[in-house]
């Protein structure tokens, strides 16, 4: 049976634009302007979901982002599907589909509902207490727990939408476009502050636009009428940018805020394509004006969670703003006057209000008198003790409340109804305020936490600052605006306000029932099914910290972060433990205020934009020649060049042989290059490298090892002296940026007296490394007039030359052990240089090789790779590189650490070579090394750091770090693998051409 509960047309609902949508497979109709929640309510659908733990039927509770119950899956089965969306925030469009979550097979009949009847067995901490033993069973428990837990389903295919980021800098950011936000933004903009006004809803005005209490007047108009005119005027104000459907998710220090702007979620499927769906706004504001309003609190009583039980303010909004009656027999339950406003709103629209239950003894305000006049029955000093109706509220029972509020007396009265509006007072939305680091203080009179100690340039205005009545709001807003914007007058000076005074208050965090607490279900956190009983149990079990109680009972840990119930939880804890709420404090409010999609967070940084990558000038050639690439730092480096379907192993074997037998060429452009100039450049190098530099002649190259101050190897590379005060340093590919940073650090902070200037020139040069016995002939073909004799251009020296008109710097240095040249040209000539080398090398079958072959060739020579054979715990001594550590230099970075007792231990892990007894077995890099096989526990001596099959030696070779390895030459060790033990022998960490004869071949 579907009833139509539309009451009277509202200006926010376009009744000429009928929209059909599906909920749980059934088609319904609503109008343009409806949210999913208002459209469902208009169709008399209250039951929309099941609670998390007990699977209790739940309905729509609120009209905004604080909704705990009505969370739905949008567009199930589609790749735009989104779980955990609040039905109160979804604007309907033609073709929208939504479904309930956390129920099976359907929301009407949910097997999990059995948990409700088993609820005595699910106290707070049930999972912690039950699934602890035996510990080994956890994996089995986990499978079932994970299966039954979880709200909604994530999409299984990739997201078709585009997301974006935008940086915004403004003078004033106003968060929330209710009456306070609008007035604040207007006055800021008018005073030439560049102002941004954001609101999470699609319409401006907040709750004031449906404020209908006839006894409240602004300039003799109702507040809603007056504010609508103000909103009209905003259009003509310069300096003001307004963003609706924009929710501030996070407020960080120094007025840095993140907001999510929703652009297409309210559009039909066909209009979503190729548009930005959501945009993350990164806002840096000079001043922030928080006008986030207040959230109405429910009341905590037995069975307060049935579908049909809603916030009083939500019922008012549905009737005034959406033109929807939430029920045909309405009752309100309240501790303040706001429920009377809601009751009058319904009454004026011809909707039946049965009664108002008020826990106060009386109230004298005009609105209360009006309610009495129209004949609505009021039960003073009464409380609801129970409700009935499984899938929809059908009655309430009330009893007289004792004067101390802890018990009920007299006879029980039952009243039938289908909708109950609860009004428990207002909680300022201080979430963003506290995220910014600012501190709250409890206001005993208003029973709320209020902004107290600001840490950044910010103000909280309107109800989020504790001003609930229009006269207070205008007065305080006016003063705060003048103070914070430093202005003398505002629009607000001339506003005249009349208000209906509320003079009676009564606050009871947990309302009593005729039944003992153990037999009742007063829900505090609706989404996670935490009741007052659970909170009291936690206290009995010894939990005291509010943060611990929260985690133990899961109060406030749902997707709504307990926006409705947190204050009650605090109140109940304070009352039970006998402490003041102000002393108890609050739990930490963490971002995001409402959930963000992953898409919004990553923005455009997906696919190939996920991470920055760098390509060398020769990259196109590598791609054309079918190279496979590997990532080295951010660089895409040619890894190997397979021909005719070769595997990596086959390609590397071929490339390695070619480089030693004839000629090979490597793209070495990625090596870090730092240009060092200044009169103290030599002294600087002396201090940063382990070896001596003062005597290096101009035009000569030297290998250097750089340590950290702790004595561990940090980086290495060849540095060339280009002139008296001019060097060029090369670093490892991955270490370039860090080395430059470290050198700058020492120069600026420890040795500012040195006259040295550092410039990164990595990207300015392209480098081709030409190697092999025919490399000299090839270079000769390219640069015929350069004298390449060993006398003129020996190993470890440098020449400048021209290839045609291209200037180049050539270093005769070698990382392979072969006769080789590193040719550097201006980056833009890199590809040209490479092609020239390939052309000239054709007759020698020059073979391009990638990083894998480079690694193999250097391993044959026992040259280390920092970061592969070292891991930040290796000293040069550990690497058996004592030869590079100057004994004469008084100091260099890390020198003192080489003489620490720990770094001088004999049994440190040291670099050695390993040869497998079976030359065909290649060890796995990272494999562990032991000396005993039948020992338990087995002592781990070290691990393999580099391992290859050498085509030139026709056997397997490996480098490893082994404890005390230096003194183990020839010793037999073992590398135990999953299904075999590999016998290995310790060798010197150099396997090929130990005497370096090939360098001059």
């Amino acid at each position: 049976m579907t009833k139509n509960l539309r009451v009277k047309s509202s200006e926010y609902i376009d009744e000429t634009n009928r929209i059909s949508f599906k909920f749980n497979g059934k088609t319904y109709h609503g109008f343009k302007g409806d949210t999913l929640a208002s459209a469902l309510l208009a169709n008399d659908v209250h039951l929309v979901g099941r609670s998390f733990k007990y699977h209790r039927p739940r309905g729509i509770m609120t009209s905004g982002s604080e909704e705990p119950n009505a969370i739905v899956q949008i567009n199930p089965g589609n790749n735009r599907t989104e779980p955990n969306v609040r039905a109160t925030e979804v604007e309907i469009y033609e073709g929208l589909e939504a479904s309930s979550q956390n129920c099976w097979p359907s929301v009407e009949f949910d097997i999990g509902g059995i948990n409700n009847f088993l609820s005595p067995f699910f106290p707070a901490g049930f999972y912690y207490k039950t699934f602890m033993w035996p510990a080994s069973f956890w994996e089995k428990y986990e499978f079932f727990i994970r299966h039954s837990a979880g709200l909604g389903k994530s999409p299984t295919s990739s997201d078709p939408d585009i997301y974006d980021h935008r940086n915004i800098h403004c003078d004033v950011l106003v968060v929330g476009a209710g009456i306070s936000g609008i007035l604040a933004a207007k006055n800021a903009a008018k005073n030439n502050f560049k102002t941004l006004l954001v609101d999470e809803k699609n319409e401006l005005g907040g709750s004031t636009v449906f404020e209908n209490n006839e006894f409240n007047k602004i300039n003799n108009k109702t507040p809603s009428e007056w504010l609508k005119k103000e909103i009209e005027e905003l259009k003509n104000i310069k300096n003001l940018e307004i963003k609706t459907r924009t929710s501030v998710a996070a407020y960080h220090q120094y007025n840095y805020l993140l907001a999510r702007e929703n652009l297409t979620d309210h559009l039909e499927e066909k209009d979503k394509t190729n548009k930005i769906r959501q945009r993350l706004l990164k806002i840096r504001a000079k001043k922030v004006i928080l006008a986030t309003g207040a959230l109405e609190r429910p009341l905590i009583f037995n069975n307060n969670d049935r579908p049909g039980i809603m916030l009083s303010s939500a019922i008012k909004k549905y009737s005034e703003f959406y033109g929807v009656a939430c029920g045909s027999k309405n009752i309100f339950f309240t501790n303040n006057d706001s429920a009377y406003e809601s009751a009058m709103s319904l009454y004026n629209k011809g909707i039946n209000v049965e009664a108002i239950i008020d826990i106060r003894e009386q109230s004298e305000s005009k609105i209360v008198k009006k309610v009495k006049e129209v004949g609505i029955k009021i039960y003073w000093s009464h409380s609801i003790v129970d409700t009935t109706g499984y899938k929809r509220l059908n009655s309430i029972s009330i009893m007289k409340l004792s004067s101390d509020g802890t018990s009920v007396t007299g006879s029980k009265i039952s009243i039938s109804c289908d909708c109950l509006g609860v009004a428990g007072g207002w909680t300022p939305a201080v979430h963003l305020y506290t995220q910014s680091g600012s501190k709250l203080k409890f206001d005993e009179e208003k029973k709320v936490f209020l902004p107290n100690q600001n840490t950044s340039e910010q103000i909280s205005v309107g109800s989020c600052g504790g001003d609930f009545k229009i006269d207070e709001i205008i007065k305080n807003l006016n003063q705060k605006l003048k103070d914070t914007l430093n202005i003398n007058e505002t629009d607000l000076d001339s506003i005249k306000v009349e208000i209906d005074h509320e003079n009676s208050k009564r606050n009871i965090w947990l309302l009593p029932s005729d039944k003992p607490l153990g037999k009742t279900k007063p829900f505090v956190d609706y989404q996670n099914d935490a009741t007052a009983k659970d909170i009291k149990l936690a206290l009995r079990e010894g939990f005291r910290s509010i943060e611990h109680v929260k985690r133990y009972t899961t109060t406030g840990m749902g997707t709504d972060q307990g926006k409705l119930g947190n204050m009650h939880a605090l109140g109940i804890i304070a009352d039970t433990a006998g402490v003041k709420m102000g002393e108890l404090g609050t739990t930490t409010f963490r971002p995001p205020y409402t959930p963000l999609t992953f898409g919004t967070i990553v923005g455009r940084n997906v696919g190939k934009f996920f991470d920055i990558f760098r390509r060398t000038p020769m990259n196109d050639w590598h791609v054309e020649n079918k190279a496979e690439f590997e990532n080295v730092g951010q660089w895409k480096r040619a890894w190997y060049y397979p021909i005719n379907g070769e595997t990596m192993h086959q390609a590397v074997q071929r490339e390695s042989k070619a480089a030693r037998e004839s000629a090979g060429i490597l793209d070495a452009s990625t090596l870090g290059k730092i240009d060092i100039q200044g009169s103290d450049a030599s002294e600087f190098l002396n201090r940063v490298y382990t070896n001596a530099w003062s005597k290096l002649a101009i035009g000569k190259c030297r290998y250097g090892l750089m340590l950290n101050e702790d004595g561990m190897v940090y980086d290495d590379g060849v540095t060339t002296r280009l002139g008296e005060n001019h060097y060029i340093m090369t670093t490892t590919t991955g270490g370039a940026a860090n080395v430059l940073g470290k050198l700058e650090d020492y120069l600026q902070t420890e040795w500012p007296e040195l006259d040295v200037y550092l410039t990164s020139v990595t990207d300015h040069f392209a480098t081709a490394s030409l190697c092999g016995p025919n490399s000299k002939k090839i270079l000769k073909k390219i640069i015929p007039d350069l004298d390449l004799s060993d006398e003129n251009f020996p190993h470890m020296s440098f020449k400048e030359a021209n290839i045609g008109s291209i200037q180049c710097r050539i270093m005769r240095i070698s990382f392979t052990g072969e006769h080789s040249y590193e040719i550097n040209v201006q980056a833009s000539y890199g590809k040209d240089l490479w092609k020239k080398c390939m052309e000239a090398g054709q007759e020698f079958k020059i073979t391009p090789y990638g990083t894998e072959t480079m690694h193999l060739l250097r391993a044959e020579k026992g040259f280390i790779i920092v970061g592969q054979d070292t891991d930040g715990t290796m000293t040069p001594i550990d690497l058996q590189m004592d030869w590079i550590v100057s004994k004469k230099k008084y100091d260099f970075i890390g020198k003192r650490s080489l003489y620490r007792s720990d770094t001088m231990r004999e049994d440190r892990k040291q670099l050695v070579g390993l040869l497998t007894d079976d030359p065909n077995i290649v060890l796995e890099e990272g494999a562990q090394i032991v000396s005993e096989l039948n020992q338990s526990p087995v002592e781990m001596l070290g691990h393999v750091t580099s391992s290859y099959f050498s085509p030139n030696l026709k056997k397997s070779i490996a480098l490893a770090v082994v404890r005390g390895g230096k003194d183990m030459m020839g010793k037999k060790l073992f590398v135990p693998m999953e299904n075999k033990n590999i016998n290995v022998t310790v060798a010197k960490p150099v396997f090929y051409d130990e005497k370096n004869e090939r360098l001059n071949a």
Partner: protein
Amino acid sequence: MFLINCPYCGERDQQEFKAGGEAHIERPKQPTELSDDEWAEYLFMRKNIKGVQFERWNHAHGCRKWFNMVRDTSNDEIKAIYKMGEKPPSQ
């Protein structure tokens, strides 16, 4: 996300900067004359206090200059920024 007033460039977003640990720890001029303990004091020991702390920062993605900052770690208030070599402001 802090807003840091680089003494050379002006106010910039924190993402342009790198934190460099405790400030005013001078590298010993004669390391070889220190005992293991004295050297370890320089090498490893750093304060991590709740409250006002002196720190080094580097405008890594900007002018690359190092400078000092006085920051209250309990609320991230930046109390002062001054150049390398300048005297720290008195507390």
